[in-house]
């Protein structure tokens, strides 16, 4: 069920990116998609009542593994967040440059390339 909700969020982002006419809203849609995927990754590693995956001296490894959450997806999400931050910065700067050139964010009015 939570996975289905993640997928729903992903589809909402995709809908926003495909349908909206404002460049900034398209960027927001793409970011919603990326965050849906990040959420999905975190959920994969989480189980109810899990503890942080930091082992202390004196803890038994076997019982600790069954109690803690999976740390790998968290590392993946950190990397994915950094990547999406990079592409977000680039996208927004392209949006600003385009606004300077065309004086609008509306993609229906930014149509020089056709065919």
């Amino acid at each position, binding site marked *: 069920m939570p996975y289905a909700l993640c997928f729903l969020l*992903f589809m909402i*982002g*995709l809908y926003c*990116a495909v349908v909206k006419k404002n*460049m900034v809203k*398209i960027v927001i849609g*793409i970011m919603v*998609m*990326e965050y849906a*995927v990040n959420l*999905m*990754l975190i959920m*994969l590693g989480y189980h109810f009542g899990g503890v942080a995956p930091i082992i202390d001296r004196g803890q038994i490894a076997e019982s600790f593994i069954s109690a803690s959450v999976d740390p*790998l*997806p968290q590392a*993946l999400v950190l*990397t*994915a967040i950094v*990547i999406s931050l*990079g*592409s977000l910065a*680039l*996208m927004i700067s*392209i*949006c600003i*440059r*385009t606004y300077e*050139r*065309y004086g609008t964010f509306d993609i229906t009015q*930014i*149509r*020089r*390339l056709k*065919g």
Partner: protein
Amino acid sequence: MSIPLPVFVAIPLATGFFMPICGKKLRPVATVLANLATLSLVVLAVTVIGQSSVYKIGEWPIPLGINLVLDGLSGLMLLVVSVVSFAAMLFSIKYMEQYTAKPKFLSLFLLMIAGMNGVVLSGDIFNLYVFLEIASIASYALVGFGCGHEELEASFKYMVLGSIASAFILFGIALVYGNTGNLNMAYVARAIQSSGLNKGLAFALALFIVGFGLKSALVPFHAWLPDAHPSAPAPISAMLSGVLIKTLGVYALSRVVFNIFGVSPQIGWVLVALALLSMVAGAFLAIGQWDFKRLLAYSSISQVGYVVLGIGLGAVILSHGGNLAWASLAILGGLFHLANHAVYKSLLFLTSGSVEMSTGTREMRQMGGLAERLPVTRAACTLASASIVGIPPFSGFWSKLILVIAAVQAGFIWLAAVIVVVSLLTLIMYLKVQRRVFLGPLPENLAGIQENKGSMQLAMVFLSCLCVMMGLLVIVPALKAGILDPAVKVLTDGVSYSVKVLSM
């Protein structure tokens, strides 16, 4: 001598980060360094060709750490990437003088090369995604490098579709991790073999096909390519059309389909259908274009169709348990066409850059009679056109011939017919280029233009020589056994990839 695999990523990455430090005074130094970096990558790629090895980063055992895998297919792709990037870098020495921020350009260019080499070498799907994003983000910035109206629009379009593709791929990776508990390609392949394809994994495979299909611009997903490729500076167009869509799209797709998930008839037919659509639609759309670079971009869509057709046909034959030799022939045709297309399409984009620099326009209706003014560019363009159409001694002929033979052998005569018909359409579009650009009367305002000398000529002549000699790769048995056969074998071996990687 064994070369540690991370150097393929480290050299362009280190040089790339050095570039922005160089100010105006150090510009020549930056240019020389960037060219040395690409040259050293060519040398390294030639030395590792045909070898296979696994590099474990930080000596961590395989499922725990990240590993880089070099096998036949990676070796072939490394060679193609480094040769094309060498030529494009050589070309950009002179071509990029018309832009102001040359060190930034070189930096992004080298980052893109680092990303592509990483994609090709990675043995871990999440790592593949990271490198794929490095290469894509660098290419988004390069498409918009001119900061004119059209460049920005094309860059935004490319970036939106590229980011959606990346989100699909990451979603697929999340599903794979959730279903198999591993990210290492060899371990994932083993887990899928033992558990079979459940619903989650099948969905992940569909997401991968859409994501990598978007990156390789197969036809229902091609909308960004005809805008993005012409808007970039000419050497970057050459890189994008020549190698980027192939490493991020075709290579990654065939790695995932053949080596991780294993082939099935459905997937094979999906690939063949996408390929046929791309070939036919790309060719028809290209004929109607009047913008020189836009025509080349549409022709790229059609040519990538050939590559995917060979690979998809191989998947169909393999999954039906057909003759291994036939499947190998189809895949050989696909991969050989990939290498050929990388060479002649980048050459065509370089010639278009040379024409644009001399005449100041890309509109073919305003050109004509350039043959006498630009003899070297004309010769290079004619050679590349002859190759892409498939005139016998040149490279394109051999790969198309192999594809036709493979299709007939496997009993799909209609596929062979489509290949020949699309070749004829390609002939029409390149005759149009020759007639409109190089033949006919010279317009008065272009009477005084000069041929571009120096590094631009050198790069074009280098790629022209390759165009003529590429046929040797299949004619000389030693070269075929050394370069193409190992690459074909990686794909025909399919999921036994995992066994091989884990035993190395």
